[in-house]
């Protein structure tokens, strides 16, 4: 029961009035920057770093962590309401979240995002508290061949994300892989597809493509449809705006899936919340009985990825705090912060600073509860955005998209790219190409290529390394199963038809 006494000690730290206040400030700030596309947690934390020198390290750590996980709550808001992903981890939330909003269920989508975030966020902290050290060793067993397996599994989900035509989905995925290959190659320092443009030397930012193809493309397509100026339906009354019992029941598995997948991917230094959200969405779809309805506004399609990207935070803190290894931009700046405060993050950090660690863990339980209380009442308020007439709403989406992209890089070139990808998104809709495979392939492409080439460099060019290592082999087998599911389904349908005497 050592954990219980440690945790009690942690709550003593986290419940100190000043720390409680900083925790609230952190999660509130996190929610705000999460809602605004563009400005993300790393930028906010970096800008607030000088302020933290006036605070105790515990208070500072509690606040900065609050910004980190708080931003994951807010990230879904613009995805659901405007089809503008607030951050890369919320891209996949657009797929079903925005469709729910179009059907008048924006409130339920926002509500379930908050609830899933709370459930999975809390599970993530539990994981961090209970299994951090053994899991850190598991994370070290993961290297390039295992990542290759993981990314392949993710990419296999393209087939599941396909609409009516698998060929069109694969073509879209190829374009995504092509965009992912742009920029300076890490291994040979060669420029690829830069077209002589200096700005393309570092490749194209994922979020620019996602906002362009999803948000701008969608608006352009809607304008072209001349849908008129009717408003999107928004039900009246708080009760009708929040998720129903049925919704919660539908999401039972999604909560579990998001919590577990998010945490495990978060623990891997080469993982990240984007991959976590895509994987849990794909898993949700693969096992769902209403697989065919995904992408049309299924509530599990919001709950799983939103849960995963919150649980990922708890996971990502595992290698950071137990090994001093950051896996993402945000954990890297948290690491820098710890060093600036005079700590030595590394394998001895937790044993030598138990109060700080347990105080942080306790504050994360409190912070997640605060976020739920903070976010649920915001749902009805945000849902009202959809009452805006389209001549206000569409320019608003354009504005939010442009601000989001510009605030990341401050580069006019990225705005031009945004416009170009908006046009691409429009054309894809017109020609009935699914956009999700392009985005997923782009999100995974660079990592997939890198993992493959690293593996081959490790093995001296021998492909066997990909199947000789057990974890990698399991991942690749799973990918194979995922690819076979639709085939089996089709065979089954064909068999049924053949069995029926009148050919039905």
């Amino acid at each position, binding site marked *: 029961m050592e954990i219980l006494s440690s945790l009690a000690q942690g709550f003593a730290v986290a419940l100190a009035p000043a720390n409680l206040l900083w925790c609230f400030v952190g999660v509130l700030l996190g929610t705000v920057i999460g809602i605004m596309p563009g400005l993300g947690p790393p930028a906010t934390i970096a800008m607030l770093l000088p302020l933290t020198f006036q605070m105790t390290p515990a208070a500072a750590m509690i606040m900065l962590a609050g910004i980190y996980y708080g931003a994951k709550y807010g990230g879904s808001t613009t995805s659901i309401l405007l089809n503008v992903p607030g951050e890369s981890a919320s891209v996949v939330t657009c797929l079903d979240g925005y469709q729910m909003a179009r059907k008048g269920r924006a409130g339920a989508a926002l509500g379930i995002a908050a609830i899933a975030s709370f459930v999975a966020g809390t599970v993530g902290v539990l994981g961090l508290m209970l299994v951090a050290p053994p899991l850190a060793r598991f994370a070290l067993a993961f290297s390039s061949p295992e990542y290759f397996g993981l990314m392949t599994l993710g990419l296999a989900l393209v087939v599941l994300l396909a609409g009516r035509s698998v060929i069109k989905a694969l073509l879209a995925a190829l374009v995504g892989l092509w965009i992912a290959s742009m920029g300076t190659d890490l291994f040979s320092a060669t420029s690829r597809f*830069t077209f002589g443009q200096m700005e393309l030397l570092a490749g194209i930012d994922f979020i620019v493509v996602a906002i362009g193809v999803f948000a701008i493309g969608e608006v352009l397509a809607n304008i072209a449809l001349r849908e008129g100026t009717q408003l999107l339906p928004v039900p009246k009354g708080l009760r009708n705006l929040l998720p129903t019992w049925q919704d919660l029941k539908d999401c039972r598995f999604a909560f579990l899936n998001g919590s577990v997948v998010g945490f495990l991917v978060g623990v891997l230094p080469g993982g990240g919340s984007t991959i976590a959200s895509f994987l849990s969405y794909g898993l949700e779809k693969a096992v769902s009985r209403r697989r065919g309805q995904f992408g049309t506004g299924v509530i599990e399609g919001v709950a799983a990825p939103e849960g995963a990207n919150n649980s990922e935070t708890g996971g990502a803190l595992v290698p950071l705090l137990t090994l001093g290894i950051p896996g993402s931009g945000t954990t890297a700046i948290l690491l820098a912060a710890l060093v600036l405060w005079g700590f030595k993050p590394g394998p001895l950090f937790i044993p030598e600073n138990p109060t700080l660690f347990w105080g942080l863990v306790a504050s994360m339980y409190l912070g997640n509860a605060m976020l739920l209380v903070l976010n649920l009442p915001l749902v009805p308020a945000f849902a009202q955005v959809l009452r805006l007439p389209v001549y206000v709403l569409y320019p608003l989406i354009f504005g939010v998209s442009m601000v989001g992209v510009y605030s990341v890089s*401050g580069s006019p070139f990225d705005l031009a790219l945004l416009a170009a990808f908006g046009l691409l998104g429009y054309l894809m809709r017109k020609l009935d190409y699914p956009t999700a495979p392009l985005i997923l392939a782009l999100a995974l492409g660079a990592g997939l290529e890198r993992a493959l080439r690293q593996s081959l460099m490790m093995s001296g060019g021998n492909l066997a390394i990909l199947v000789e290592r057990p974890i990698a082999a399991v991942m690749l087998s799973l990918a194979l199963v995922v690819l076979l599911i639709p085939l089996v389904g089709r065979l089954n349908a064909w068999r049924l038809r053949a069995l029926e005497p009148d050919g039905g």
Partner: protein
Amino acid sequence: MNATVRALVLATIAAAAPAVHAQGFKPTRPIEMVVHTGPGGGNDVLARAIAAMIEKEKLAPVRMQVVNKPGGNGNVFVAYVAEKRGDPHTLGLFTGNMITNMLISTEVKVTLRDLTPIARLVLEPAVIAVKADAPYKTLADFIDDAKKRPGQLKQSGGSITSRDNVVRQLLMRSTGAQWAFISFPGGGERIAALLGGHVNMMVIEPEEAGEHIRAGNMRVLAQVSERRLHGFPNVPTLKEAGFDVPVVPQVRGVVAPPGIPKENVQYWEELFRKLTRTASWQKYLAENQFEDGYLTSAELAAFFDGFSDRMREILGAAGIKTVR
């Protein structure tokens, strides 16, 4: 070695010079300190630390604000500073990688050499580390094993143009040993690959290695620096370990837009000279195990030339095409 002597001579001359410093210029609006990373990147953190120190030590009459210009492997940053031609209130932080990048990118129209050198500030040494349970006790052990099994041993590191690979190239050339270099984009992944036993060796920053050594997970074989670092009094430098290869530090420092007046250059030079003499700066260097790398404007210009020549040669030997 010649460059060091020249640098020393120049330093002596420069040390006498500040007496006549810059009456002509004083900043009147906030100083823009441009960096090539997003918030949280190496130079961003350094720039924010510098801004805080300048304010704390009251070294300038105005505030310094950090402006992030990420993208294009640092080239967007260079182009932005270059466009501020003649602007007396803009500065930028460079890293040595920008010199390497300009040598290999045809896309780049303006380079770091088009900007006005102001001061070199930091030298970041490195150490060569292996996992604690590895059979290698000295760098020579590792090199011998690599000779026995050419191409079998592995090193994790950053991009192929990074300092990690330059150190490897220099060691391989001077010993005839061969081992593989596996690039990982994130520092965390490089360490994880070593600790997980997926690679055999890495070149790592001393501060990062420190905790893994204390926890008994890593062992340091040699240090890539001219003198022994205070954190590693018992670890030989490359030269002491019997490998007489040039020490390639990671450098950071300050540049300004092209075409700024002479008194402007002198003012910045003096500002950063004063900064590097403050207790806060020395403490910052010690905490991060950086070395004081202060060079004046003229010395930095010479350093740029020498560094480019050396990198061109190393890249060429590694089979990477240089374009200028």
